[in-house]
Protein backbone atom coordinates (compact mmCIF):
# COMPACT_ATOMS: atom_id res chain seq x y z
CA UNK A 1 0.00 0.00 0.00
CA UNK A 2 1.48 3.32 -1.04
CA UNK A 3 1.26 6.47 1.07
CA UNK A 4 -1.45 7.81 -1.25
CA UNK A 5 -3.45 4.58 -1.00
CA UNK A 6 -3.22 4.83 2.78
CA UNK A 7 -4.21 8.51 2.78
CA UNK A 8 -7.17 8.11 0.40
CA UNK A 9 -8.30 4.94 2.13
CA UNK A 10 -7.88 4.05 5.80
CA UNK A 11 -6.45 7.40 6.95
CA UNK A 12 -9.30 9.49 5.62
CA UNK A 13 -11.88 6.94 6.69
CA UNK A 14 -10.50 6.72 10.23
CA UNK A 15 -10.14 10.49 10.54
CA UNK A 16 -13.68 11.10 9.30
CA UNK A 17 -14.99 8.52 11.78
CA UNK A 18 -13.16 10.19 14.68
CA UNK A 19 -14.38 13.60 13.50
CA UNK A 20 -18.03 12.53 13.39
CA UNK A 21 -17.79 10.68 16.71
CA UNK A 22 -16.12 13.65 18.37
CA UNK A 23 -18.51 16.26 17.02
CA UNK A 24 -21.66 14.29 17.91
CA UNK A 25 -20.23 13.30 21.27
CA UNK A 26 -19.33 16.84 22.29
CA UNK A 27 -22.45 18.47 20.85
CA UNK A 28 -24.77 15.97 22.53
CA UNK A 29 -22.82 16.12 25.78
CA UNK A 30 -23.31 19.91 25.89
CA UNK A 31 -26.96 19.76 24.83
CA UNK A 32 -27.86 17.31 27.56
CA UNK A 33 -26.48 19.46 30.39
CA UNK A 34 -28.90 21.13 32.78
CA UNK A 35 -29.79 24.72 31.96
CA UNK A 36 -29.97 27.29 34.72
CA UNK A 37 -33.54 28.11 35.68
CA UNK A 38 -33.96 31.90 35.93
CA UNK A 39 -34.77 32.90 39.48
CA UNK A 40 -35.82 36.45 38.66
CA UNK A 41 -38.41 37.99 36.38
CA UNK A 42 -37.46 38.66 32.74
CA UNK A 43 -36.81 42.35 32.00
CA UNK A 44 -37.39 41.86 28.33
CA UNK A 45 -40.19 40.06 26.52
CA UNK A 46 -38.44 39.40 23.20
CA UNK A 47 -35.52 37.33 24.36
CA UNK A 48 -35.29 35.06 21.31
CA UNK A 49 -35.20 38.04 18.97
CA UNK A 50 -32.54 39.72 21.04
CA UNK A 51 -30.58 36.49 21.28
CA UNK A 52 -30.37 36.32 17.49
CA UNK A 53 -29.50 40.02 17.44
CA UNK A 54 -26.52 39.33 19.67
CA UNK A 55 -25.47 36.46 17.42
CA UNK A 56 -25.30 38.91 14.51
CA UNK A 57 -23.98 41.98 16.36
CA UNK A 58 -20.88 40.09 17.54
CA UNK A 59 -19.80 39.54 13.94
CA UNK A 60 -18.50 43.12 13.94
CA UNK A 61 -16.41 44.79 16.62
CA UNK A 62 -18.19 46.67 19.39
CA UNK A 63 -17.76 50.41 18.69
CA UNK A 64 -16.06 51.03 21.99
CA UNK A 65 -13.30 48.51 21.21
CA UNK A 66 -13.23 49.17 17.50
CA UNK A 67 -9.73 50.58 17.27
CA UNK A 68 -8.21 47.89 19.42
CA UNK A 69 -9.80 44.79 17.90
CA UNK A 70 -10.58 45.66 14.30
CA UNK A 71 -7.45 43.96 12.95
CA UNK A 72 -8.36 40.75 14.74
CA UNK A 73 -11.87 40.88 13.31
CA UNK A 74 -10.83 41.67 9.76
CA UNK A 75 -8.07 39.06 9.75
CA UNK A 76 -10.47 36.51 11.19
CA UNK A 77 -13.10 37.29 8.60
CA UNK A 78 -10.65 37.07 5.72
CA UNK A 79 -9.17 33.73 6.60
CA UNK A 80 -12.45 32.11 7.63
CA UNK A 81 -14.09 33.16 4.39
CA UNK A 82 -11.00 32.17 2.44
CA UNK A 83 -11.04 28.78 4.10
CA UNK A 84 -14.63 28.14 3.04
CA UNK A 85 -14.07 29.45 -0.49
CA UNK A 86 -11.07 27.15 -1.01
CA UNK A 87 -12.74 24.20 0.66
CA UNK A 88 -16.06 24.45 -1.14
CA UNK A 89 -15.34 26.12 -4.47
CA UNK A 90 -12.10 24.57 -5.72
CA UNK A 91 -12.90 22.17 -8.55
CA UNK A 92 -10.86 19.26 -7.27
CA UNK A 93 -12.44 19.64 -3.82
CA UNK A 94 -15.92 19.59 -5.33
CA UNK A 95 -14.92 16.38 -7.12
CA UNK A 96 -14.11 14.95 -3.70
CA UNK A 97 -17.49 15.99 -2.27
CA UNK A 98 -19.24 14.73 -5.38
CA UNK A 99 -17.59 11.34 -4.87
CA UNK A 100 -18.83 11.37 -1.28
CA UNK A 101 -22.29 12.91 -1.62
CA UNK A 102 -23.21 12.04 -5.17
CA UNK A 103 -23.74 15.65 -6.23
CA UNK A 104 -21.59 18.68 -6.90
CA UNK A 105 -22.03 22.41 -7.31
CA UNK A 106 -20.58 25.29 -9.36
CA UNK A 107 -16.95 26.16 -8.72
CA UNK A 108 -14.65 29.15 -9.07
CA UNK A 109 -11.79 29.40 -11.59
CA UNK A 110 -8.51 27.98 -10.33
CA UNK A 111 -6.83 31.37 -10.53
CA UNK A 112 -9.36 32.88 -8.12
CA UNK A 113 -9.12 29.98 -5.67
CA UNK A 114 -5.31 30.03 -5.73
CA UNK A 115 -5.34 33.77 -5.00
CA UNK A 116 -7.81 33.34 -2.15
CA UNK A 117 -5.78 30.44 -0.76
CA UNK A 118 -2.63 32.56 -0.90
CA UNK A 119 -4.27 35.41 0.99
CA UNK A 120 -5.74 33.00 3.53
CA UNK A 121 -2.41 31.32 4.18
CA UNK A 122 -0.73 34.71 4.40
CA UNK A 123 -3.22 35.90 7.03
CA UNK A 124 -2.87 32.68 9.01
CA UNK A 125 0.92 33.02 8.98
CA UNK A 126 0.60 36.66 10.04
CA UNK A 127 -1.70 35.69 12.91
CA UNK A 128 0.71 32.98 14.01
CA UNK A 129 3.62 35.43 13.92
CA UNK A 130 1.57 38.00 15.82
CA UNK A 131 0.69 35.45 18.47
CA UNK A 132 4.39 34.68 18.91
CA UNK A 133 5.64 38.28 18.81
CA UNK A 134 2.94 40.13 20.75
CA UNK A 135 3.81 39.75 24.48
CA UNK A 136 0.20 39.81 25.67
CA UNK A 137 -0.97 37.31 23.08
CA UNK A 138 2.04 35.13 23.79
CA UNK A 139 1.26 35.21 27.51
CA UNK A 140 -2.32 34.04 27.07
CA UNK A 141 -1.61 31.53 24.30
CA UNK A 142 -1.66 27.83 25.06
CA UNK A 143 -0.71 24.72 23.12
CA UNK A 144 -4.30 24.54 21.93
CA UNK A 145 -3.96 27.95 20.23
CA UNK A 146 -0.72 27.21 18.43
CA UNK A 147 -1.57 23.65 17.47
CA UNK A 148 -5.00 24.58 16.11
CA UNK A 149 -3.45 27.32 13.97
CA UNK A 150 -0.74 25.05 12.62
CA UNK A 151 -3.14 22.16 11.99
CA UNK A 152 -5.40 24.57 10.07
CA UNK A 153 -2.49 25.89 8.01
CA UNK A 154 -1.03 22.52 7.02
CA UNK A 155 -3.74 21.63 4.47
CA UNK A 156 -3.16 25.00 2.80
CA UNK A 157 0.59 24.51 2.58
CA UNK A 158 0.39 20.92 1.33
CA UNK A 159 -2.48 21.81 -0.99
CA UNK A 160 -0.46 24.59 -2.59
CA UNK A 161 2.51 22.31 -3.10
CA UNK A 162 0.35 19.51 -4.53
CA UNK A 163 -1.43 21.87 -6.90
CA UNK A 164 1.79 23.49 -8.06
CA UNK A 165 3.57 20.11 -8.32
CA UNK A 166 6.28 21.47 -6.11
CA UNK A 167 8.40 19.66 -3.57
CA UNK A 168 7.86 15.93 -3.51
CA UNK A 169 6.23 13.97 -6.33
CA UNK A 170 2.55 14.71 -6.93
CA UNK A 171 1.32 11.47 -5.37
CA UNK A 172 3.38 12.14 -2.24
CA UNK A 173 2.19 15.75 -1.96
CA UNK A 174 -1.42 14.71 -2.57
CA UNK A 175 -1.03 12.04 0.11
CA UNK A 176 0.47 14.58 2.53
CA UNK A 177 -2.38 16.97 1.73
CA UNK A 178 -5.00 14.32 2.49
CA UNK A 179 -3.09 13.29 5.62
CA UNK A 180 -2.98 16.91 6.79
CA UNK A 181 -6.75 17.10 6.34
CA UNK A 182 -7.07 13.85 8.26
CA UNK A 183 -5.05 15.42 11.07
CA UNK A 184 -7.33 18.46 11.01
CA UNK A 185 -10.40 16.22 11.18
CA UNK A 186 -9.02 14.29 14.14
CA UNK A 187 -7.91 17.44 15.95
CA UNK A 188 -11.12 19.34 15.26
CA UNK A 189 -13.57 18.04 17.89
CA UNK A 190 -11.04 17.95 20.71
CA UNK A 191 -9.52 21.40 20.35
CA UNK A 192 -10.70 24.97 20.23
CA UNK A 193 -11.76 24.29 16.65
CA UNK A 194 -14.96 22.85 18.18
CA UNK A 195 -16.08 26.51 18.26
CA UNK A 196 -17.61 25.80 14.85
CA UNK A 197 -20.59 24.24 16.64
CA UNK A 198 -20.46 26.14 19.92
CA UNK A 199 -19.86 29.70 18.71
CA UNK A 200 -23.33 30.72 17.53
CA UNK A 201 -25.35 28.91 20.23
CA UNK A 202 -23.15 30.37 22.97
CA UNK A 203 -23.57 33.86 21.52
CA UNK A 204 -27.32 33.33 21.50
CA UNK A 205 -27.36 32.11 25.10
CA UNK A 206 -25.19 35.04 26.17
CA UNK A 207 -27.50 37.48 24.39
CA UNK A 208 -30.58 36.00 26.02
CA UNK A 209 -28.94 36.12 29.45
CA UNK A 210 -27.88 39.74 29.03
CA UNK A 211 -31.20 40.96 27.70
CA UNK A 212 -33.14 39.06 30.35
CA UNK A 213 -31.30 41.07 32.94
CA UNK A 214 -31.73 44.29 31.01
CA UNK A 215 -28.21 44.48 29.58
CA UNK A 216 -28.62 45.63 25.99
CA UNK A 217 -25.55 43.93 24.52
Amino acid at each position, binding site marked *: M*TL*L*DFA*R*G*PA*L*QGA*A*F*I*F*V*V*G*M*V*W*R*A*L*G*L*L*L*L*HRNTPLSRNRDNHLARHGFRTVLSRFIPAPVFERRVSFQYVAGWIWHLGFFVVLLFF*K*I*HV*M*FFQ*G*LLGFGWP*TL*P*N*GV*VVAVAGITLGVLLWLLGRRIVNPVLRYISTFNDYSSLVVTMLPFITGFLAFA*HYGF*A*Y*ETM*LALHILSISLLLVWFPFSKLIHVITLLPSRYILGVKFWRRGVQA
Partner: protein
Amino acid sequence: MIRRQQTLGERLEERGISRRSFLKFCTTTASLLALPPAFAPRIAEALESQRRPSVIWLSFQECTGCSESILRAGSPSIESLIFEAISLDYHETLQAAAGHQAEAAREQAMAENMGKYLVVVDGSVPLGNPGFSTVAGQSNVETLKRVAKGAAAVICMGTCSAFGGIPYAKPNPTGAVPVSEIITDKPIVNVPGCPPIPAVMTSVIAHYITFGSLPELDDLGRPKVFYGQNIHDRCYRRPFYERGQFAQSFDDEGAKAGWCLYKLGCKGPTTYNACAVLKWNEGTSFPIEAGHGCLGCSEPNFWDKGSFYAPLSTATELGSGTVAAGVLAGAVLGAGAGYAGRKMQEKGKAGPFEAPPVADAGQKENS
Protein backbone atom coordinates in the same frame (compact mmCIF):
# COMPACT_ATOMS: atom_id res chain seq x y z
CA MET B 1 16.08 -20.47 -34.03
CA ILE B 2 18.20 -17.94 -35.86
CA ARG B 3 21.70 -18.93 -36.88
CA ARG B 4 23.76 -17.87 -33.90
CA GLN B 5 27.24 -17.46 -35.39
CA GLN B 6 26.47 -14.21 -37.27
CA THR B 7 26.95 -10.85 -35.63
CA LEU B 8 24.19 -8.31 -35.79
CA GLY B 9 26.20 -6.13 -38.18
CA GLU B 10 26.65 -9.01 -40.60
CA ARG B 11 23.02 -9.89 -40.39
CA LEU B 12 21.84 -6.35 -41.05
CA GLU B 13 24.17 -6.10 -44.02
CA GLU B 14 22.80 -9.37 -45.36
CA ARG B 15 19.28 -7.99 -45.04
CA GLY B 16 20.13 -4.83 -46.96
CA ILE B 17 19.93 -2.41 -44.03
CA SER B 18 22.23 0.51 -44.82
CA ARG B 19 24.81 1.64 -42.33
CA ARG B 20 23.20 5.08 -42.36
CA SER B 21 19.87 3.56 -41.21
CA PHE B 22 21.63 1.52 -38.59
CA LEU B 23 23.51 4.53 -37.20
CA LYS B 24 20.25 6.46 -37.17
CA PHE B 25 18.77 3.74 -35.02
CA CYS B 26 21.79 3.85 -32.71
CA THR B 27 21.41 7.62 -32.33
CA THR B 28 17.71 7.19 -31.58
CA THR B 29 18.48 4.51 -29.02
CA ALA B 30 21.08 6.75 -27.38
CA SER B 31 18.49 9.50 -27.27
CA LEU B 32 15.83 7.20 -25.83
CA LEU B 33 18.22 6.15 -23.11
CA ALA B 34 19.07 9.81 -22.43
CA LEU B 35 22.69 9.20 -23.32
CA PRO B 36 24.88 11.84 -25.00
CA PRO B 37 25.01 11.63 -28.84
CA ALA B 38 28.63 10.54 -28.54
CA PHE B 39 27.36 7.21 -27.30
CA ALA B 40 25.72 6.40 -30.65
CA PRO B 41 28.95 5.06 -32.26
CA ARG B 42 29.61 3.03 -29.13
CA ILE B 43 26.15 1.50 -29.35
CA ALA B 44 26.72 0.82 -33.05
CA GLU B 45 30.08 -0.80 -32.35
CA ALA B 46 28.68 -2.92 -29.57
CA LEU B 47 25.66 -4.01 -31.57
CA GLU B 48 27.65 -4.72 -34.71
CA SER B 49 30.24 -6.84 -33.04
CA GLN B 50 27.83 -8.51 -30.66
CA ARG B 51 26.65 -12.00 -31.39
CA ARG B 52 22.93 -12.07 -31.02
CA PRO B 53 22.24 -12.69 -27.37
CA SER B 54 20.16 -15.69 -26.58
CA VAL B 55 16.80 -14.74 -25.18
CA ILE B 56 14.45 -17.17 -23.49
CA TRP B 57 10.96 -15.79 -23.20
CA LEU B 58 8.80 -17.40 -20.54
CA SER B 59 5.06 -16.86 -20.55
CA PHE B 60 3.21 -17.55 -17.33
CA GLN B 61 -0.15 -16.17 -16.18
CA GLU B 62 -0.55 -13.62 -18.92
CA CYS B 63 -2.74 -12.60 -21.83
CA THR B 64 0.03 -12.45 -24.49
CA GLY B 65 -0.64 -8.72 -24.77
CA CYS B 66 3.00 -7.98 -24.02
CA SER B 67 4.13 -10.18 -26.89
CA GLU B 68 1.48 -8.63 -29.10
CA SER B 69 2.79 -5.22 -28.14
CA ILE B 70 6.41 -5.92 -28.95
CA LEU B 71 5.43 -7.53 -32.24
CA ARG B 72 3.80 -4.25 -33.18
CA ALA B 73 7.05 -2.36 -32.82
CA GLY B 74 6.35 -1.11 -36.33
CA SER B 75 7.57 -3.31 -39.13
CA PRO B 76 9.98 -2.78 -40.75
CA SER B 77 11.17 -0.38 -38.09
CA ILE B 78 14.64 -0.85 -36.76
CA GLU B 79 13.20 -1.84 -33.38
CA SER B 80 11.53 -4.87 -34.90
CA LEU B 81 14.76 -5.80 -36.68
CA ILE B 82 16.64 -5.62 -33.42
CA PHE B 83 14.03 -7.79 -31.85
CA GLU B 84 14.33 -10.18 -34.75
CA ALA B 85 18.08 -10.03 -34.55
CA ILE B 86 18.35 -11.25 -31.03
CA SER B 87 18.30 -14.98 -30.86
CA LEU B 88 14.88 -15.63 -29.50
CA ASP B 89 15.42 -19.24 -28.63
CA TYR B 90 12.22 -19.90 -26.78
CA HIS B 91 8.85 -18.22 -27.01
CA GLU B 92 5.84 -20.48 -26.78
CA THR B 93 3.66 -18.29 -28.97
CA LEU B 94 6.17 -17.33 -31.64
CA GLN B 95 8.49 -20.27 -32.02
CA ALA B 96 7.99 -22.70 -34.85
CA ALA B 97 8.82 -25.71 -32.73
CA ALA B 98 6.19 -27.26 -30.55
CA GLY B 99 5.97 -29.87 -27.81
CA HIS B 100 9.20 -31.69 -26.95
CA GLN B 101 11.10 -29.90 -29.73
CA ALA B 102 10.31 -26.54 -28.17
CA GLU B 103 11.47 -27.65 -24.75
CA ALA B 104 14.60 -29.15 -26.32
CA ALA B 105 15.37 -25.82 -28.01
CA ARG B 106 15.23 -24.09 -24.66
CA GLU B 107 17.45 -26.67 -23.01
CA GLN B 108 19.96 -26.34 -25.84
CA ALA B 109 19.98 -22.53 -25.62
CA MET B 110 20.48 -22.69 -21.87
CA ALA B 111 23.33 -25.17 -22.17
CA GLU B 112 25.13 -23.22 -24.92
CA ASN B 113 24.76 -19.82 -23.25
CA MET B 114 24.96 -20.75 -19.61
CA GLY B 115 25.37 -17.59 -17.51
CA LYS B 116 24.93 -15.30 -20.52
CA TYR B 117 21.37 -15.60 -21.77
CA LEU B 118 18.61 -13.18 -20.99
CA VAL B 119 15.33 -14.36 -19.56
CA VAL B 120 12.25 -12.36 -20.42
CA VAL B 121 9.17 -13.14 -18.38
CA ASP B 122 5.66 -12.04 -19.07
CA GLY B 123 2.94 -13.08 -16.67
CA SER B 124 2.82 -13.60 -12.94
CA VAL B 125 3.76 -16.81 -11.23
CA PRO B 126 1.01 -18.75 -9.41
CA LEU B 127 2.10 -20.29 -6.14
CA GLY B 128 -1.23 -21.99 -5.55
CA ASN B 129 -2.28 -25.18 -7.31
CA PRO B 130 0.34 -25.95 -10.03
CA GLY B 131 -2.58 -26.73 -12.32
CA PHE B 132 -3.31 -23.02 -12.58
CA SER B 133 -0.48 -22.66 -15.07
CA THR B 134 1.69 -25.54 -16.17
CA VAL B 135 3.79 -25.98 -19.31
CA ALA B 136 5.12 -29.36 -20.39
CA GLY B 137 4.21 -30.84 -17.04
CA GLN B 138 6.25 -28.29 -15.13
CA SER B 139 4.76 -25.63 -12.91
CA ASN B 140 5.60 -22.00 -13.69
CA VAL B 141 7.55 -21.55 -10.48
CA GLU B 142 9.72 -24.63 -11.21
CA THR B 143 10.37 -23.44 -14.77
CA LEU B 144 11.26 -19.94 -13.63
CA LYS B 145 13.71 -21.14 -10.99
CA ARG B 146 15.33 -23.58 -13.37
CA VAL B 147 15.70 -21.20 -16.31
CA ALA B 148 16.70 -18.15 -14.25
CA LYS B 149 19.50 -20.12 -12.59
CA GLY B 150 21.81 -19.77 -15.61
CA ALA B 151 20.59 -16.35 -16.74
CA ALA B 152 22.67 -13.20 -16.87
CA ALA B 153 19.62 -11.12 -16.05
CA VAL B 154 15.86 -11.29 -15.96
CA ILE B 155 13.65 -8.78 -17.72
CA CYS B 156 10.11 -8.67 -16.41
CA MET B 157 8.04 -7.70 -19.37
CA GLY B 158 4.70 -6.19 -18.39
CA THR B 159 3.01 -5.44 -15.10
CA CYS B 160 2.08 -9.09 -14.37
CA SER B 161 5.67 -10.32 -14.13
CA ALA B 162 6.93 -7.03 -12.66
CA PHE B 163 4.28 -6.45 -9.97
CA GLY B 164 1.78 -9.29 -10.21
CA GLY B 165 -0.66 -7.41 -12.42
CA ILE B 166 -4.22 -8.55 -12.92
CA PRO B 167 -3.74 -12.12 -11.60
CA TYR B 168 -2.33 -10.55 -8.41
CA ALA B 169 -5.40 -8.34 -7.96
CA LYS B 170 -7.72 -9.10 -5.07
CA PRO B 171 -8.69 -11.79 -4.24
CA ASN B 172 -5.69 -13.28 -6.10
CA PRO B 173 -7.23 -16.75 -6.48
CA THR B 174 -4.09 -18.36 -7.89
CA GLY B 175 -1.70 -17.02 -5.28
CA ALA B 176 0.10 -15.06 -8.01
CA VAL B 177 3.37 -13.28 -7.24
CA PRO B 178 5.75 -11.17 -9.31
CA VAL B 179 9.05 -12.65 -10.47
CA SER B 180 11.03 -10.61 -7.93
CA GLU B 181 9.44 -12.57 -5.09
CA ILE B 182 10.91 -15.80 -6.42
CA ILE B 183 14.18 -14.80 -8.07
CA THR B 184 16.32 -12.83 -5.66
CA ASP B 185 19.87 -13.59 -6.78
CA LYS B 186 19.80 -12.21 -10.35
CA PRO B 187 19.65 -8.68 -11.73
CA ILE B 188 16.02 -7.94 -12.52
CA VAL B 189 14.69 -5.09 -14.56
CA ASN B 190 10.98 -4.37 -14.51
CA VAL B 191 9.40 -3.08 -17.69
CA PRO B 192 5.83 -2.67 -16.48
CA GLY B 193 2.83 -1.65 -18.49
CA CYS B 194 -0.26 -3.40 -19.66
CA PRO B 195 1.36 -3.81 -22.11
CA PRO B 196 4.71 -1.96 -22.02
CA ILE B 197 5.86 0.30 -24.82
CA PRO B 198 7.78 -1.79 -27.42
CA ALA B 199 10.61 0.73 -27.81
CA VAL B 200 11.20 0.63 -24.07
CA MET B 201 11.73 -3.11 -24.20
CA THR B 202 14.09 -3.06 -27.17
CA SER B 203 16.04 -0.16 -25.65
CA VAL B 204 16.57 -2.06 -22.42
CA ILE B 205 17.97 -4.97 -24.44
CA ALA B 206 20.13 -2.60 -26.50
CA HIS B 207 21.48 -1.08 -23.30
CA TYR B 208 22.32 -4.50 -21.98
CA ILE B 209 24.13 -5.48 -25.19
CA THR B 210 26.05 -2.18 -25.31
CA PHE B 211 27.13 -1.81 -21.74
CA GLY B 212 26.82 -5.35 -20.45
CA SER B 213 24.63 -4.07 -17.66
CA LEU B 214 21.07 -3.05 -17.05
CA PRO B 215 20.10 0.62 -17.15
CA GLU B 216 19.76 2.69 -13.99
CA LEU B 217 16.63 1.60 -12.17
CA ASP B 218 14.20 3.35 -9.84
CA ASP B 219 13.06 1.98 -6.49
CA LEU B 220 10.58 -0.29 -8.27
CA GLY B 221 13.25 -1.75 -10.53
CA ARG B 222 12.13 0.21 -13.61
CA PRO B 223 14.57 1.93 -15.99
CA LYS B 224 14.65 5.53 -14.78
CA VAL B 225 15.09 6.82 -18.28
CA PHE B 226 11.60 5.65 -19.23
CA TYR B 227 9.83 5.63 -15.88
CA GLY B 228 11.44 8.67 -14.29
CA GLN B 229 8.64 11.12 -14.94
CA ASN B 230 4.93 10.85 -14.49
CA ILE B 231 2.60 11.03 -17.45
CA HIS B 232 0.86 14.12 -16.10
CA ASP B 233 4.10 16.14 -16.20
CA ARG B 234 4.52 15.38 -19.91
CA CYS B 235 0.84 15.37 -20.88
CA TYR B 236 -0.23 17.80 -23.56
CA ARG B 237 -3.47 18.35 -21.59
CA ARG B 238 -1.56 19.63 -18.56
CA PRO B 239 -2.32 23.34 -19.21
CA PHE B 240 -6.02 22.55 -18.87
CA TYR B 241 -5.35 21.01 -15.46
CA GLU B 242 -3.55 24.18 -14.39
CA ARG B 243 -6.50 26.27 -15.48
CA GLY B 244 -9.04 23.96 -13.84
CA GLN B 245 -10.64 23.01 -17.13
CA PHE B 246 -11.83 19.44 -16.70
CA ALA B 247 -13.98 17.29 -18.96
CA GLN B 248 -17.06 16.34 -16.97
CA SER B 249 -18.01 13.37 -19.13
CA PHE B 250 -16.52 11.57 -22.11
CA ASP B 251 -18.82 13.30 -24.56
CA ASP B 252 -19.20 16.85 -23.23
CA GLU B 253 -17.81 20.02 -24.75
CA GLY B 254 -14.78 19.87 -22.49
CA ALA B 255 -13.91 16.38 -23.68
CA LYS B 256 -14.29 17.50 -27.28
CA ALA B 257 -12.05 20.49 -26.60
CA GLY B 258 -9.36 18.21 -25.16
CA TRP B 259 -9.59 19.36 -21.55
CA CYS B 260 -7.92 17.54 -18.69
CA LEU B 261 -9.35 14.08 -17.84
CA TYR B 262 -8.51 14.26 -14.10
CA LYS B 263 -12.17 14.33 -13.14
CA LEU B 264 -12.87 11.28 -15.29
CA GLY B 265 -10.35 9.31 -13.28
CA CYS B 266 -7.10 9.85 -15.16
CA LYS B 267 -4.19 8.41 -13.13
CA GLY B 268 -1.55 10.28 -15.13
CA PRO B 269 -0.39 12.32 -12.11
CA THR B 270 0.60 9.17 -10.21
CA THR B 271 1.77 7.01 -13.10
CA TYR B 272 5.38 6.85 -14.18
CA ASN B 273 5.79 5.86 -17.80
CA ALA B 274 6.88 7.29 -21.13
CA CYS B 275 3.49 7.04 -22.88
CA ALA B 276 3.11 10.82 -23.26
CA VAL B 277 6.54 11.08 -24.86
CA LEU B 278 7.11 7.92 -26.91
CA LYS B 279 3.42 7.24 -27.52
CA TRP B 280 2.08 4.11 -29.17
CA ASN B 281 1.65 2.70 -32.66
CA GLU B 282 4.77 4.33 -34.03
CA GLY B 283 4.17 7.57 -32.19
CA THR B 284 0.55 7.92 -33.26
CA SER B 285 -1.03 8.66 -29.89
CA PHE B 286 -1.48 7.37 -26.36
CA PRO B 287 -4.59 6.63 -24.27
CA ILE B 288 -5.08 10.20 -23.02
CA GLU B 289 -4.72 11.52 -26.54
CA ALA B 290 -7.35 9.00 -27.63
CA GLY B 291 -9.74 10.51 -25.07
CA HIS B 292 -9.51 8.11 -22.15
CA GLY B 293 -7.78 8.74 -18.84
CA CYS B 294 -4.64 6.85 -17.91
CA LEU B 295 -5.36 3.66 -15.94
CA GLY B 296 -1.98 3.71 -14.22
CA CYS B 297 -1.11 0.28 -15.66
CA SER B 298 2.63 0.58 -15.03
CA GLU B 299 2.15 1.05 -11.29
CA PRO B 300 1.93 -1.77 -8.73
CA ASN B 301 -1.60 -2.84 -7.77
CA PHE B 302 -3.18 -0.54 -10.34
CA TRP B 303 -6.16 -2.88 -10.49
CA ASP B 304 -6.97 -2.47 -6.80
CA LYS B 305 -6.69 1.31 -6.45
CA GLY B 306 -10.38 2.08 -6.64
CA SER B 307 -12.42 2.89 -9.70
CA PHE B 308 -10.63 3.78 -12.93
CA TYR B 309 -13.22 6.54 -13.28
CA ALA B 310 -12.91 8.13 -9.81
CA PRO B 311 -10.67 11.21 -9.56
CA LEU B 312 -7.44 10.75 -7.62
CA SER B 313 -8.63 13.25 -5.03
CA THR B 314 -11.59 11.13 -3.93
CA ALA B 315 -11.67 8.90 -0.89
CA THR B 316 -11.55 5.19 -1.60
CA GLU B 317 -13.02 3.81 1.60
CA LEU B 318 -14.93 6.67 3.19
CA GLY B 319 -18.67 6.37 2.70
CA SER B 320 -22.04 6.84 4.34
CA GLY B 321 -21.45 3.70 6.42
CA THR B 322 -18.47 5.33 8.14
CA VAL B 323 -20.45 8.49 8.85
CA ALA B 324 -23.45 6.53 10.17
CA ALA B 325 -21.21 4.45 12.43
CA GLY B 326 -19.58 7.67 13.64
CA VAL B 327 -22.93 9.28 14.41
CA LEU B 328 -24.04 6.20 16.32
CA ALA B 329 -20.84 5.91 18.33
CA GLY B 330 -20.84 9.67 18.95
CA ALA B 331 -24.46 9.56 20.12
CA VAL B 332 -23.69 6.81 22.63
CA LEU B 333 -20.62 8.65 23.93
CA GLY B 334 -22.50 11.98 23.94
CA ALA B 335 -25.41 10.52 25.87
CA GLY B 336 -22.98 9.08 28.40
CA ALA B 337 -21.08 12.36 28.65
CA GLY B 338 -24.34 14.30 28.99
CA TYR B 339 -25.58 12.00 31.72
CA ALA B 340 -22.29 12.22 33.59
CA GLY B 341 -22.31 16.00 33.17
CA ARG B 342 -25.82 16.30 34.59
CA LYS B 343 -24.87 14.19 37.58
CA MET B 344 -21.86 16.39 38.23
CA GLN B 345 -24.01 19.50 37.90
CA GLU B 346 -26.55 18.10 40.34
CA LYS B 347 -23.82 17.13 42.76
CA GLY B 348 -22.16 20.53 42.45
CA LYS B 349 -25.38 22.45 42.90
CA ALA B 350 -26.38 20.44 45.94
CA GLY B 351 -23.41 21.86 47.89
CA PRO B 352 -23.42 25.66 47.65
CA PHE B 353 -27.17 26.02 47.61
CA GLU B 354 -27.84 23.85 50.60
CA ALA B 355 -29.13 26.38 53.13
CA PRO B 356 -27.54 26.07 56.56
CA PRO B 357 -29.92 25.46 59.50
CA VAL B 358 -31.44 28.69 60.81
CA ALA B 359 -30.11 28.18 64.31
CA ASP B 360 -26.56 27.75 63.05
CA ALA B 361 -26.88 30.85 60.93
CA GLY B 362 -27.95 32.83 63.96
CA GLN B 363 -24.99 31.56 65.98
CA LYS B 364 -22.69 32.55 63.15
CA GLU B 365 -24.07 36.06 63.10
CA ASN B 366 -23.66 36.39 66.85
CA SER B 367 -20.11 35.11 66.94
